[in-house]
């Protein structure tokens, strides 16, 4: 997917003005936050599980080469094939090749963020395959020709009204009279449309929530069961996943699944949890004839060698964005690439370049709530701050910010000068603002005063008053 992160300020402002988006986001965030909290309140060992989840991922990342090889051997032993994709282009070429070799016409897809990352839909459609998203949210945004705005709830930005309209246009040629329809009715309609696609697909593409090194299995979780229909019905199953999705054992996968379901949707366990190991065996009643795993690097191994390795612990639960006030205000599209919110603000600059996404690390209040809910304890604010450091060192920080820091730094590092300047400055501002208590407008402060008054200082500095107090006491 092409990044439009450069347009963040404009897109963010537009999002703020979008009344329907606001309604959709408020509802979604409240729901996610509340459900997660309820499930964690009922699960006192959650904090201990977070420690364990972090330890599992740290260990796996430290021995990633070993586990990747173990995984590959196990997949092959189970009758599957492993493909190594160093870049997005590699992944596109590999998946397209598999579909061509299978003589496929129709391809069904269960939601995969790795697939979004390498623009799989566009590539497959261009290559002439009828490509159908089967996750309800993904199906909706595929109809709307939009990218996902959330990593687990791709159509979270859409209201029921908008979805009713979309279905009316695409399923009924705009002929339906009822404008707003009930959720079960909409779901039923999508289900019926998709059923035919499931039954006629030649290739099914899924992601993988986890890759299990000891067995060569992939773990898939959904609440709709669409991933299972995607990988059992067609002749060929392709799973695409980032190399960081690996865990050593099934036991480790079980720990991660417990963290994932609670953090993502507040469920104890997702409705469908499936481990897939190899293609259909002799005697199996169903399953694909061939099973392929595409292991995607696309910049991940570079992160292994620096402090952003911590970001590779991410299990794509979406808790960080569900708890992010900025995401809650502007939604996912403003971030401009596949991954939005706090985790996206770290990943997008790392994957697509800091120059093109310079707003993302800065569009954060560093309030730290994302870190406090992250199931694998990624220090997101620290990583964002570190990206700011890189920006500063490479001269990418806004000129105005650098200028203010230089002036402030020059004064603040000289206490005598600082005390003199602040005494004079605050004395003046204090006198000017004494009557009204605040300023409507102030030179050089329009970014503040456009929407807020600037409270006037009391007029003396604390240092002044303190000295006065010391003198009076003598």
């Amino acid at each position, binding site marked *: 997917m092409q990044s439009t992160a450069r347009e963040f300020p404009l897109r963010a402002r537009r999002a*703020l003005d979008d009344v329907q988006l606001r309604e959709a986001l408020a509802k979604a965030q409240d729901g996610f936050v509340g459900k997660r909290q309820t499930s964690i309140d009922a699960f006192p060992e959650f904090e201990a599980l977070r420690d364990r989840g972090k330890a599992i991922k740290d260990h796996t990342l430290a021995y990633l080469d070993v586990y990747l090889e173990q995984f590959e051997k196990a997949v092959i032993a189970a009758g599957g094939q492993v493909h190594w994709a160093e870049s997005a282009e590699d992944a596109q070429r590999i998946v397209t090749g598999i579909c061509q070799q299978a003589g496929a016409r129709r391809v069904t897809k269960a939601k995969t963020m790795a697939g979004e990352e390498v623009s799989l839909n566009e590539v497959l459609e261009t290559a002439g395959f009828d490509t159908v998203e089967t996750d309800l949210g993904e199906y909706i945004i595929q109809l709307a020709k939009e990218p996902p705005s959330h990593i687990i709830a791709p159509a979270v930005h859409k209201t029921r009204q908008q979805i009713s309209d979309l279905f009316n246009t695409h399923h009924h040629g705009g002929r339906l009279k009822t404008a707003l329809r009930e959720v079960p009715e909409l779901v039923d309609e999508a289900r019926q449309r998709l059923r035919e696609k499931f039954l006629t697909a030649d290739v099914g593409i899924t992601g993988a929530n986890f890759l299990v090194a000891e067995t060569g299995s992939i773990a898939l979780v959904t609440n709709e069961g669409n991933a299972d229909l995607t990988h059992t019905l067609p002749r060929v199953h392709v799973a695409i996943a980032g190399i960081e999705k690996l865990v050593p054992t099934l036991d480790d996968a079980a720990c991660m699944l417990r963290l994932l379901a609670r953090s993502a949707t507040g469920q104890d366990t997702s409705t469908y949890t499936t481990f897939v190991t190899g293609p259909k065996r002799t005697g199996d009643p169903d399953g694909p004839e061939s099973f392929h795993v595409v292991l995607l690097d696309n910049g991940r191994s570079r992160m292994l060698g620096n402090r952003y390795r911590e970001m590779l612990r991410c299990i794509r639960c979406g808790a960080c964005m569900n708890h992010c006030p900025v995401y809650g205000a502007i939604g996912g599209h403003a971030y401009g690439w596949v991954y939005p919110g706090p985790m996206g603000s770290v990943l997008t600059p790392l994957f697509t370049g800091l120059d093109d996404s310079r707003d993302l690390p800065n569009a954060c*209040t560093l309030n730290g709530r994302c870190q406090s809910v992250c199931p694998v304890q990624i220090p997101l604010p620290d990583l964002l701050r570190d990206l700011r450091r890189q920006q500063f060192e490479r001269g990418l920080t806004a000129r105005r910010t650098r200028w203010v820091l230089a002036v402030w730094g020059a004064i603040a*590092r000289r206490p005598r000068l600082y005390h003199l300047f602040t005494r004079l*400055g605050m004395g003046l501002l204090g006198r000017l603002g004494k009557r*009204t208590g605040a300023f409507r407008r102030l030179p050089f402060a329009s970014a*503040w005063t456009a929407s807020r008054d600037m409270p006037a200082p*009391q007029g003396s500095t604390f240092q002044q008053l303190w000295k006065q107090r010391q003198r009076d006491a003598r």
Partner: protein
Amino acid sequence: MGDGVDRVALFATCLVDLYRPSVGLASAELLEQAGYRVEVPEGQTCCGQPAWNSGDTRRAKTLARQTMAALEGYGYVVVPSGSCAGTLIHDYPQLFAEDPEDLGAAEDLASRTWELTRFLVEVAGITGLDANFRHKVCYHDACSGLRGLGIKHQPRQLLGSVDGLELQELPNTEICCGFGGTFCVKYPEISTRLMDDKLDAIRSTGADTVLAGELGCLLHIAGRLKRNDEPIRAYHIAEILADMGDQPAIGEGDD
């Protein structure tokens, strides 16, 4: 109390020094009431947090070294701000992680530094206060204190000792008010949206006064309230605890 331990350095923070010196005086009063000898080292200016958060490590280090030198030798350093205290406690050791010469001093300072309300409750063990404030108030948990330093029950416990004060809990108190240091001027529209959501929460409590332990958030809250011409007033918690609630609130003039 042993030698030197009862000497407390008050690190007022630059915002308090410039905007709201009464918060510094109130903090000093409270510490003195608790039996400490308060000093305000003159070498203090800004802790360097804006530079650190903007990725300007060189300037952040310069200001950190200056602050560490100014606060050397005090048994305790008390700060009426969770975010500036957090900078001294968490950020300085990170900033100097690869500078062995300064790391020792940074860790030493971190071990002596306390946010005001936490110090009053957990170190000074304050049980009663000579203060009254006959108002319905709500308390805004500033994020850096709440999540960085575990400041949650301490301010509430202290407010419980203020005569006449009725505390109403804010809904969604975990959510940021949108100040975020330089964030509020880099992304003013997003910042203001977050503030408006916070004001909805504040209004829903029916409180006539909002308190916090963080002047940055308070200037932001008071600034938006004032722009909307709303009667809700904003004070730093130290001012109320030190019985200074009869002076003009933040952003309030003589008129």
